[in-house]
């Protein structure tokens, strides 16, 4: 059973460019969340997708956008990159099931470096 997969592993961009990161959730999961983890910090919630719609959003600007596809996979897009966007971007999947609070399973992350 494949866990959460993310691509690419590493990415180097320059300021002002745009980037797309991809995530495939763990088999059976229907909800995908994205987190940004800056160096030396805990992950910060960006947004969460369920049924192809953004359901929750953290304190991130509109430059950060996403998408969820019918097969539950997801993309994170960041426009007009800033140096401060350099971070590890983590995708997490979970199964939304009524009132049950299910743990999130994380992928290995995409390391984005903005020069």
């Amino acid at each position, binding site marked *: 059973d494949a866990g959460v997969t993310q691509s690419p592993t590493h990415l180097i961009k320059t300021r002002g460019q745009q980037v797309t990161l991809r995530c495939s959730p763990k088999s059976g999961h229907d909800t995908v969340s994205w987190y940004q983890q800056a160096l030396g910090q805990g*992950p910060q*919630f960006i947004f969460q997708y369920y049924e192809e719609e953004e359901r929750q959003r953290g304190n991130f600007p509109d430059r950060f956008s996403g998408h969820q596809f019918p097969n539950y996979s997801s993309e994170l897009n960041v426009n007009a990159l800033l140096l401060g966007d350099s971070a590890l971007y983590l995708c997490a999947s979970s199964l939304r099931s009524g009132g049950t*609070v299910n743990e*999130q399973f994380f992928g290995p992350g995409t390391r984005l470096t903005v020069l």
Partner: protein
Amino acid sequence: AQSVAQPEDQVNVAEGNPLTVKCTYSVSGNPYLFWYVQYPNRGLQFLLKYITGDNLVKGSYGFEAEFNKSQTSFHLKKPSALVSDSALYFCAVRDILSGGYNKLIFGAGTRLAVHP
């Protein structure tokens, strides 16, 4: 505002000794609490969660955590540390305002170093 605090940047312990990684939380209502571990160049791995019930929660790799409502704490423990336990540990709380969705608020992390 809801938050999680991990008061120690680093914890050092000798192999075979018990370990504790501290976490305190601030939420309104009943908290849903989680511990994750992160190894170098890896994503986060789930260790355990507290939703309700027994205050002592058992998780993966011999870890357990004790929920203390009066002290608003959820400390991670292991009776006998291994060198392979050396990693970055994160405590997280589910955002109570996220409704049925599972938005997590993470602490800053504690680096655990287990020495032979």
